[in-house]
């Protein structure tokens, strides 16, 4: 629908495009709207996944021409953003069109001269603003820009002049935020999407705070060229973050519960096509079979083995998991059929019948192809897991982490890190104890991070008044090879959990 070829074609048509071979990879240079020749990755294109920013509010959208976008109670079209550079700032003009802002910093009007010493003369009687809500609406209808409205508000405030300099600044900042219709278009990244989900929909990402996600990626040593197992129920945010860190090198195996993997947030990253070729998926419900060596991907296609319930799940999985690739294939199939029809010279009545049959056949064929592809994908993922040599394991789900961790750790090679996120502490305590009992891991650490933001202004530096109460908990560790653990006189490589303390308290 919105593939890269189509969008770059429009670029090719009107603008100069050239390929330059840099030391490691191809960079495609294209001309932006301002006439500048830059790496095309810096240019906003039709179909791109982008993030809109206004103040500290973000929204992930896809650029689609003539598609209305609603953001912060405003609606507009993103058409004019196409061809501009990422990081560009726009003003929403009447009719919902975006106008690139050229003047960089037309800051606060300089008329602010007078200010008070303190607030002893300021009374909150709700009458300091002479403009009514209706007046403001009228101003808006007259097409006054945000900045001009703020100016009007300042002029019609009877107390503005008595406010302290700091209070005036704060007032203007507050009003600007309310009335200025300025948005910035950003390229998606883990930072931005993690901030966005945490701010807007924390429930969808198990309340995983961005600094906690950062810990997971670092403690998990996620990097290009490795083979990482991910199990998450965070809308695909953790998966996307892992994929970004791997840069399309290596492989990611997403384990998923139920019908199919959820990847809404992963899509918002707008990864290039080749990233998706490194992504594999494997259903949790087949893990036991895989571990027991009874998983037979050939039976997958027949659909009869798993019984009706599993069959239903599998088909939804197939539908959900169907990649853009498959969709394209489908379209190709549809496109080709009418062509073939026109060339045939059969009687109209027969033609109808033939067409129906043909469609039926096509559909059956399509289904077969899909099944085949699904089977191939499953066995590819199974093959990756079967080596039991994954380089890392990342878990962030609403499921109890204990069984997840104990089972999935069996696919991880020795001397590799693993990291488990849980919104709650107690399940991770249980994990910790079970792992200690079972062995096979060292360096177990249960942790949490504490995050505080600061307001830094001349003479007004202090912590921000509100802070996050908690960002979830992390259990991390390193796998070891304890297959030959029978020998050796040392009982445990780490001191046993301090039960001595317990006796002390009892005594």
């Amino acid at each position, binding site marked *: 629908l919105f593939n890269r070829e189509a969008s770059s074609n429009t670029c090719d048509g009107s603008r100069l495009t050239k390929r330059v071979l840099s030391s490691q990879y191809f960079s495609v240079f294209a001309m932006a709207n301002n006439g500048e020749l830059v790496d095309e990755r810096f240019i906003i294109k039709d179909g791109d996944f982008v993030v809109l920013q206004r103040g500290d509010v973000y929204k992930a959208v896809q650029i689609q021409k003539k598609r209305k976008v609603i953001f912060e109670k405003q609606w507009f079209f993103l058409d004019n953003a196409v061809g501009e550079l990422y990081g560009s700032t726009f003003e929403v003009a009447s009719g919902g069109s975006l106008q690139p802002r050229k003047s960089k910093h037309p800051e606060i009007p300089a008329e602010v001269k007078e200010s008070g010493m303190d607030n002893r003369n300021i009374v909150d009687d709700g009458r300091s603003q002479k403009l009514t809500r209706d007046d403001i609406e009228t101003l808006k209808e007259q097409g006054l820009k945000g900045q001009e409205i703020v100016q009007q508000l300042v002029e019609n405030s009877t107390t503005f002049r008595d406010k302290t300099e700091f209070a005036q600044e704060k007032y203007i900042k507050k009003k600007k935020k309310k009335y200025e219709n300025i948005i910035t278009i950003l390229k998606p990244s883990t930072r931005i999407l993690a901030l966005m989900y945490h701010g807007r929909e924390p429930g969808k990402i198990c309340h995983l705070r961005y600094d906690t996600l950062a810990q997971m990626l670092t403690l998990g040593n996620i990097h*290009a060229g490795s083979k990482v197992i991910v199990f998450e129920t965070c809308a695909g945010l953790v998966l996307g973050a892992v994929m970004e860190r791997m840069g399309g090198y290596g492989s990611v195996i997403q384990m998923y519960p139920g019908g199919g993997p959820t990847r809404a947030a992963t899509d918002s990253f707008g990864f290039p096509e080749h990233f998706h070729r490194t992504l594999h998926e494997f259903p949790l419900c087949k893990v036991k079979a895989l571990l027991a060596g009874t998983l037979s991907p050939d039976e997958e296609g027949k659909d009869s083995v798993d019984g009706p319930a599993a069959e239903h799940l599998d088909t939804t999985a197939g539908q959900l998991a169907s990649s853009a690739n498959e969709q394209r294939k489908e379209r190709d199939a549809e496109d080709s059929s009418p062509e073939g029809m026109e060339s045939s010279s059969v009687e109209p009545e027969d033609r109808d019948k033939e067409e129906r049959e043909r469609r039926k056949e096509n559909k059956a064929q399509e289904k077969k192809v899909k099944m085949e592809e699904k089977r191939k994908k499953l066995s590819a993922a199974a093959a990756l897991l079967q080596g039991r040599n994954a380089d890392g394991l990342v878990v962030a789900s609403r499921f109890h982490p204990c069984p997840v961790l104990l089972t999935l750790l069996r696919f991880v090679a020795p001397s590799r890190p693993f990291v488990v996120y849980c919104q709650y502490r107690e399940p991770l305590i249980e994990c910790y104890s079970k792992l200690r009992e079972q062995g096979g891991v060292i360096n177990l650490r249960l942790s949490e991070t504490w*995050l505080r933001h600061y307001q830094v202004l001349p003479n007004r530096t202090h912590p921000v008044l509100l802070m996050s109460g908690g960002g979830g908990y992390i259990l991390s560790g390193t796998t070891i090879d304890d297959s030959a653990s029978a020998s050796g006189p040392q009982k445990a490589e780490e001191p046993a959990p301090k039960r001595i303390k317990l006796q002390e308290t009892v005594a």
Partner: protein
Amino acid sequence: MSFVEYSELIQEGDVAIIFLGHDSMFPLMVQSGAQTQTRYGVIRHSTDLIGRRYGSKVTCSKGGWVYVLHPTPELWTLNLPHRTQILYATDIANITMMLELKPGSVVCESGTGSGSLSHAMLRTIAPTGHLYTVEFHQQRAEKATEEFREHKVDHLVTVLNQDVCKDGFGVTGVADAVFLDIPSPWEAVGHAKSAMKRQGGRLCSFSPCIEQVQRTCAALAEHGFGEICTLEVLLRLYDVRAVSLPLPDFGPDDPSRTDPGVPDRAGPSVPTNTAVTCRTAIAPREMAGHTGYLTFASKSLV
């Protein structure tokens, strides 16, 4: 072995981490014929290490054993020789994400210090990115260069021995991100800006003192940086323990309410359970309460 690529087996010339147990580790360079003394006895590299799998248990001469781990930037941070104060994984994690580092990123860093952050950044930007790291102390710059070579990441990094505040990063218009950990970061903001790509990028400054932060923020605003944001992250490590909570004895039940027919039943109470054991996570008595303030900013489009 390399700090940017896993391998299965221990080989000659590798840097391996020897894990002795409970936060006790040290790094060693694997050399055939060499021996390393530990409190559990000698490790003979040729027989005990080379050709074995990372993560293996190695029995030392006195019969005790250790685990041999594949190096990671995080293990290196815990084991590296300190030449300066270093950054730890908690701050590193946030710096990496907030600077939007990923494979292919070009990063400028100053100072190099002991190379704790450098190793973590190299891991993230490999195999196509590059790190320009500037250190004004000559020996430190030389030592870092040597370590990068030993860790097989030297193709990804350029070490410069100069004063970033005076001479900048030695590159212009190439960086996606800049990291400053120097005494007066505000003096390097201009150089940071010119090292960054024209299309913008991210900057981070790490400072222990709030006065440094104030001056840096002012310099950032002056140079047109946006999204200026200062934060602080602390790690809370928990100790998982079974604790026992004794149950109090309130004495026997009210005698007047006991059934007179069965006098012994409620007699001198001998509670079957005098204590309850529960597993809990205990915060340490002391923890790092401050490392430094992290100030982030974006270079906006010019």
